[in-house]
């Protein structure tokens, strides 16, 4: 499978400010790609560059191999997108908003019913969009993006304004899209948990630079499991493990986190570490697997950038 989105050295300057700098995205087909970054890090600008709504200062963006500047129509035929808060015609009903786009795309009338059903807006289709709640507007935007079953969906902060139930529903919906429709989803968010629960691939952007990009499973370090030991004397525990040639990842707060030996049986390895601690006179009162979280990955790669100044707020 190829890339749904591929950018090379994508750069955008607004006067003296470089909003996006040398971004090289690779979004594999049929993936859910979480594009993560703090507010103001360049996520929306990157999406607008990918869609050809902004002209890049340098670099290229391709959608399914079509250069967005040279073959704009071919590229956009495969795309549905919602950027920021969906732009809706408030004086028209939800259905009429969809009908406008359906008409331009030359789709059958039944397509409007399909996306209304899919997004749970069938009952509200005759109401003016101006009277919709933020969550309904978000769903109407999504419905519009889904018209024609595009191969690529670009969703900019899709859970903004949704209530907790709506957020869960939206996450499930997004996760299921590649399997149900074969679509690729490019999802931008400043919410670490959202990307962690939804994406198969992750790109981290900070201050306009793509600082990391990989499969989520790789980033969370499937082969680098660690175990947390609750102990009465963490420094003594660290010294004991050092003597036993075990790698201590983190010490503090009555805990010590120890890396398991690569390739070893996790249970047996944990038992061996426990034995080493007990033999050294350390009291162990808790043993728990310490799975790596996206937050750890983020803080390692982008945290310094994100909190180092400027207006950007780190993801939460």
């Amino acid at each position: 499978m190829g890339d749904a989105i591929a950018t090379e050295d994508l750069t955008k300057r607004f006067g003296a400010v470089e909003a996006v700098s040398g971004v090289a995205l690779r979004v594999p087909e049929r993936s859910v790609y979480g594009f993560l970054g703090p507010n103001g890090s360049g996520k929306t600008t990157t999406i607008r560059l990918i869609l050809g709504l902004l002209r890049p200062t340098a670099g290229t963006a391709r959608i399914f191999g079509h250069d967005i500047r040279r073959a704009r129509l071919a590229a956009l035929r495969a795309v549905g997108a919602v950027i920021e808060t969906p732009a809706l015609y408030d004086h028209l009903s939800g259905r009429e908003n969809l009908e406008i786009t359906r008409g331009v795309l030359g789709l059958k009338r039944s397509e409007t019913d399909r996306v209304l059903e899919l997004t749970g807006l069938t009952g509200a289709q005759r109401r003016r969009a101006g009277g919709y709640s933020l969550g309904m507007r978000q769903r109407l935007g999504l419905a519009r993006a889904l018209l024609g079953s595009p191969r690529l969906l670009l969703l900019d902060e899709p859970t903004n304004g949704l209530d907790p139930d709506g957020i869960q529903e939206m996450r499930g919906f997004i996760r299921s899209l590649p399997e149900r429709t074969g679509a690729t989803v490019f999802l931008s968010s400043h919410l670490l948990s959202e990307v962690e629960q939804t994406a198969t691939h992750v790109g981290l952007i900070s201050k306009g630079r793509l600082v990391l990009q990989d499969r989520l499973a790789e980033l969370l370090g499937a082969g680098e499991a660690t175990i947390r030991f609750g102990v009465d004397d963490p420094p003594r525990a660290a010294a004991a493990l050092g003597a036993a040639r075990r790698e201590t990842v983190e010490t503090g707060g009555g805990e010590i986190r120890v890396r398991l030996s690569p390739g070893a049986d996790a249970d047996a390895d944990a038992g061996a570490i426990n034995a080493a601690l007990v033999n050294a006179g350390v009291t162990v009162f808790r043993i728990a697997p310490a799975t790596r979280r996206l937050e750890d990955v983020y803080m390692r790669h982008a945290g310094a950038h994100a909190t180092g100044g400027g207006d950007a707020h780190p993801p939460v």
Partner: protein
Amino acid sequence: MLIRLFSAELRKLREPVTLLALFAAPMLAGALMFAGIAAGERAPEWADVWEGMTGFWMLLLAPLSATAFAAFAAQIEHRARGWDHQLMLPAPKWMTFAVKAAVVILGLWVMTALFPLAVAAGGWLGGQIGAGGPLTGQVGLAAFYRLIVLGAAAGLCLTAIQIWASLRFASFIAPVLLGFGGVAVTLAGMIFRQVDRIELWPWGMPMWIALTIEEYPQSAQRLALYGLAGGLAVLIAMTLHLSRREMR
């Protein structure tokens, strides 16, 4: 694709305010005509009425209607922040803007077509109930239409400029100021008897046609052609400019 975009633009205009925008100017002229005739003690001739109403339309109502309707149609998109969605659809950018302009021009032609009818109806009704009785002389609607059509052709230039400004600026203040300014210059030209200096002023061209059609019909026709050609040139420049612009 052209037809699909056109029908999408027409769909966006489905709101009561559109009807108000389309009918306000002709109806205002008709209402004024009715009030004037009904209140008058002596019924004027149709020819005199047409002359006065032509000036009113060409100088004020037509340019200001173009200003208002272009701003109204553009605001539908600006207000909804609809450019992002509009321009990420698989349609040529130039076509998107050209169709928007075509819808505005069509709306203005509808207004232009309604104007003589509204004036004639107002005059007829006023004559029925006024003390002065019905208007005298031939109605001469066909000749009036001819003049109005020439004015509309000449007015394409100012219409195109108004559309350009309306689409370019997210705030309606800029195009409205432009429209008022354009009319003000024409008025100043008339007040200071410098009409010949505003012959090629886009907002003054329709008025110039109204002033010269009797004496110099060929000159009026030439001016209508200039307005038409200028309008088309402005529309082409507008679609090129806006297609290359980063719209927000």
